[in-house]
């Protein structure tokens, strides 16, 4: 009989490599944007507006992915846009995860009044439409990187809290948790040493998913002009600008859109792949 586990491992490996590869490229692009970018992302040249990408007729040498209506280099803007996207993904994703998972773990394991309070907050939160909530928050706090990050944490911690609470409840009912307590462990240390390692795979999946979501939220906010100042390039801003001229210059819209799509997809695939790595049953 063939060992199916081997097959599972191989496809998992491929998924991990592809998504990890794309994110590594992106991280390098973000770090080395000034070195890699062929042009200044802000430089306008009205004589070079809406130049097509390199393989099409009328392409301008040096502008690989074409230019937008103001004559700015699309490739350079995508590279610089990766900076903001990744900072938001890492910082907002991690903070959201930390806040939400901590509250979910406490609610699910301790139950009782901590659970009642946290679950009540989650219920109230879920009643707000997230995008409107985000726009409202930014409107109150003002635009800027910090506001975006805070908005994402405030909106999305419930995603972690809900899922991790349910998982912690399931794990908490298992006999091994009871036996840890009979071994003289306190509730708090049982939570950290017994429950946490078993919900960690889920946390990792949610975390990477959240990083993808953070990228999307940032893009949405840029799209409605509520992200950072408009002159630093963002993928959402580019998509928003590209939308108006999609019939004359599709590349202004399509390239940032593809980048965004691949990035969000990679984050979620990375999560799935890592989860299986973490899972003792598949390891």
């Amino acid at each position, binding site marked *: 009989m063939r060992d199916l586990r081997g097959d599972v491992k191989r496809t998992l490996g491929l998924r991990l490599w592809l998504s990890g590869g794309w994110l590594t490229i992106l991280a390098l692009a973000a770090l080395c944007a000034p070195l890699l970018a062929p042009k200044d992302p802000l430089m306008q040249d009205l004589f070079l507006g809406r130049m097509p990408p390199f393989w099409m007729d009328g392409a301008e040498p040096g502008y690989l992915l074409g230019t937008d209506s103001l004559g700015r280099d699309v490739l350079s803007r995508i590279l610089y846009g990766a900076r903001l996207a990744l900072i938001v993904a890492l910082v907002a994703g991690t903070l959201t995860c930390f806040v939400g998972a901590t509250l979910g773990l406490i609610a699910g394991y301790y*139950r*009782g009044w901590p659970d009642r309070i946290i679950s009540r907050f989650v219920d109230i939160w879920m009643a707000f439409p997230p995008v409107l909530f985000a726009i409202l928050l930014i409107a109150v706090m003002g635009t800027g990187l910090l506001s975006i990050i805070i908005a994402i944490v405030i909106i999305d911690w419930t995603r972690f809290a809900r899922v991790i609470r349910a998982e912690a409840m399931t794990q908490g009912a*298992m*006999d*091994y948790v*009871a*036996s*840890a*307590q*009979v*071994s*003289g*462990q*306190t509730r708090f240390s049982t939570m950290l040493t*017994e429950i946490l*390692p*078993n919900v*960690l795979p889920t946390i990792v999946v949610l975390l990477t998913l959240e990083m993808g979501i953070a990228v999307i939220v940032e893009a949405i906010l840029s799209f409605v002009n509520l992200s950072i100042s408009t002159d630093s390039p963002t993928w959402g801003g580019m998509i928003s600008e590209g939308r108006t001229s999609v019939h004359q210059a599709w590349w202004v819209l399509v390239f940032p859109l593809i980048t965004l799509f691949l990035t969000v997809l990679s984050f979620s695939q990375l999560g799935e792949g890592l989860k299986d790595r973490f899972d*003792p*049953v598949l*390891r």
Partner: protein
Amino acid sequence: MNGYLSIRNLTVRLKGGGTILRDVSLNVAAGQVHGLMGESGAGKSMIGKAVLGTLPRALDITSGQIWLDGVDLQTLPPAERRNRIGALAALIPQDPLTALNPSRRIGPQITRRLVDILGWKRQDAAKRALELLNEVHIPDAPRVMRSYPHELSGGMRQRILIASAFAAEPKLIIADEPTTALDVTVQKQILHLISEMQARHDTALLFVTHDLGVMSKVCDTLSVLYAGKVVEEANMPRFFMRPIHPYSAALLAATPTYTDPTSSLTPVPQTVVDQVEREVMEHDLRTAS
């Protein structure tokens, strides 16, 4: 009667109302095996959990005492109670799958009490774990210690949990239907192993089961539980010769081992069920007033 474990008039209630254990008293003498018999849902597991201090949070001990080695556990502050229970008592659980932490290797799970409560060094604990694994007849012990629970069969996991229960030389072991979740083929071996370990280590054993046949082989005394109420407490020979309560008699009659194996099973007659239900109700009325 005053046992190593002595439960006196223990009442456990659901926080919302509802009684789970009704005035339960039972004794497990040092080095003896006491059977706890009752149908599913009677409250057998909750007795074990009450002793070990692992009752579900929805349940409360509302009255009664649990004496372990001459100390009423209810009078101790929580941390001291945990340590005392951890040092003196241990559980062999019903389901060996959920009783081991899936993300930890076997070795440290066997000896965690030695390290956590008794303050052993890790190397000493590892040596002890090897001894224990040999004692429960696990071949290739060093490899098993490095495995994760999912890599082992149900029977192996139960052997490991038995080793773990005996690790800190507790004086009381609670075995909660330790063979119910296992294949029929390994049930006998596990049962045999528990008896062997109990005799060698001279521990008191509270043996929970709903199988009278099993009980007759391992126990010295027993209690019969119905709806959280002890309906009969007896020693084994007396119980089999002259059960006092009609429910006990009906249980005996319902067990195929003690009737002609070719005959069909006799269910507990409705009149007997009605009688115990009435007794339980009368008990509730008496305690409510």
